[in-house]
């Protein structure tokens, strides 16, 4: 069911599509060498989907990019969330790790690409590493803040009930921090997609970033737009999936409900 706001959003998209048609096909105000017409976009999409482009069909490229993002994101969650929770819980852990974190944090994720390639070569491993680094930071910071913002009486209630340490983490601290953890995961996912394209622009042989790279060299605006739109859609779809997971996990949270 589409609400009132949903219709407004659809209206905007429809208006942009019309504007696109008017500016390219109808009037020719924007030349085909700079931006593709709807027809050219469609032809490019058809070409890459069926016959293939840049060494593979669209599905192959998309699945490969999806795999890299999923792996980098997964490693970032597995490492980042526990680290953030630990730093939030233990002042000592924070004191020990935070200085290192503060120094490393301002380094843009893309600045790791040369080092990653030097260490791991041009294959997938280097790209996963860079995606991991970029997605790592928001997960750590938000998990950390999530723990620091837990109501003290909640922890005290758990201790009064004799909750052993492991259960305190899994049944009290992690759930209490989970709204913030999910905020971190969202930001991490965004960071993962942003970094993916940049990582694939450098030394990839398959993937959406590679399509973009080839299309640029081929001076092929239609295919460039296809690559951009596909990345956008993939990013949107994965964010939507994450939102579903969040809704399920945080069903108890009044603030998360509409």
């Amino acid at each position, binding site marked *: 069911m589409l609400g009132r706001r949903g219709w407004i959003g659809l209206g905007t998209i429809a208006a942009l599509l019309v504007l696109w048609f008017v500016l390219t096909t109808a009037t020719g105000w924007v030349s085909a060498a700079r931006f593709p017409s709807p027809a050219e976009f469609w032809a490019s999409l058809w070409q890459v989907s069926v016959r293939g482009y840049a060494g593979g069909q669209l599905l192959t490229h998309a699945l490969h990019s999806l795999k890299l993002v999923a792996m980098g994101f997964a490693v970032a969650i597995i490492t980042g969330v526990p680290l953030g929770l630990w730093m939030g819980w233990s002042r000592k852990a924070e004191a020990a790790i935070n200085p290192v974190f503060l120094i490393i944090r301002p380094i843009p994720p893309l600045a790791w690409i040369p080092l990653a390639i030097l260490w791991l070569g041009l294959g997938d491993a280097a790209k996963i590493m860079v995606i991991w680094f970029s997605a790592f930071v928001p997960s750590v910071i938000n998990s950390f803040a999530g723990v620091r913002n837990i109501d003290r009486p909640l922890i*005290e209630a*758990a*201790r*009064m*009930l*004799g*909750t052993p340490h492991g259960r305190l983490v899994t049944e*009290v601290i992690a759930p209490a921090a989970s709204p913030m953890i999910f905020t971190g995961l969202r930001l991490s996912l965004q960071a993962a997609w942003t970094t993916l394209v940049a990582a694939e622009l450098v030394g990839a042989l398959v993937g959406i970033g590679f399509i973009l790279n080839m299309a640029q060299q081929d001076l092929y605006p239609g295919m460039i737009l296809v690559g951009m739109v596909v990345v956008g859609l993939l990013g949107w779809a994965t964010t939507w999936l994450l939102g579903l997971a969040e809704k399920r996990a945080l069903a108890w*949270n009044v603030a998360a409900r509409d």
Partner: protein
Amino acid sequence: MGSIRFDKVDKVFGPNTGGVKVLDNINLEIGEREFVAIVGPSGCGKTTCLRMAAGFEAPSAGLVSVSGRPVTAPGPDRAVVFQQFALFPWKTVRQNIELGLRNKKLPTGERADLVAGALKLMNLEGHAEAFPHQLSGGMQQRVAIARAYVLDPEVLLMDEPFGALDAQTRVVMQEELVRLARVNPRTVLFITHAVEEAVYLADRVAVMTRRPCRIKEVLDIRKIRQAENWDKHARIEDVMDLESFVHLRTQIWKSLREEKVANVV
């Protein structure tokens, strides 16, 4: 069943940074199955007393002991009911009540029986699978009390448990607590700033003063309650109308007020 003892207890917050003496030489003994209320103005250190008995704070001097053992850390032998309920919002009513029993490693069947009993005791049947946010404040506090009772603790520590409730709900909960105390008497330390609540609920009322933060006097309500047969009245307003009740209430009010005047002078 347990007892609580405050023995020459001082509490100084921030002793390294100047220090604020919040409690000065607190002496109080709460016997087995005795219900003691502490009344006093806001900020006089009532919560701090309770937190020391719970094991959340350590005294700066003196000794707090429960059933003869010095308090060192929080534990399920000293169940706390918090003013803001402190229920786990991601757990259902049943899971909230059950957590302490799981921590005690009780077998599943026994846990289910105990939880069912606690739900019945607090009139929560039918809400077992609800989440806290789906319940009213009064219902949430029932869950918190059930969670404390089900532990079968040595002592119950209640910090203004009805302070966050609206007036009507508070009255219902006060009557409920009196009923509980009759069915299942416990050793209770009850904090409040409402004089009437203290007189209605407690066996003894300790009046606390601010600066110096001491216990000024302790009034025994039991004899008057028994002599005047308060318990034959089911409703709190009927008890509060009794001359003996009004007299005690006024006495405590005066005690608190003298304190305030003394502060101004």
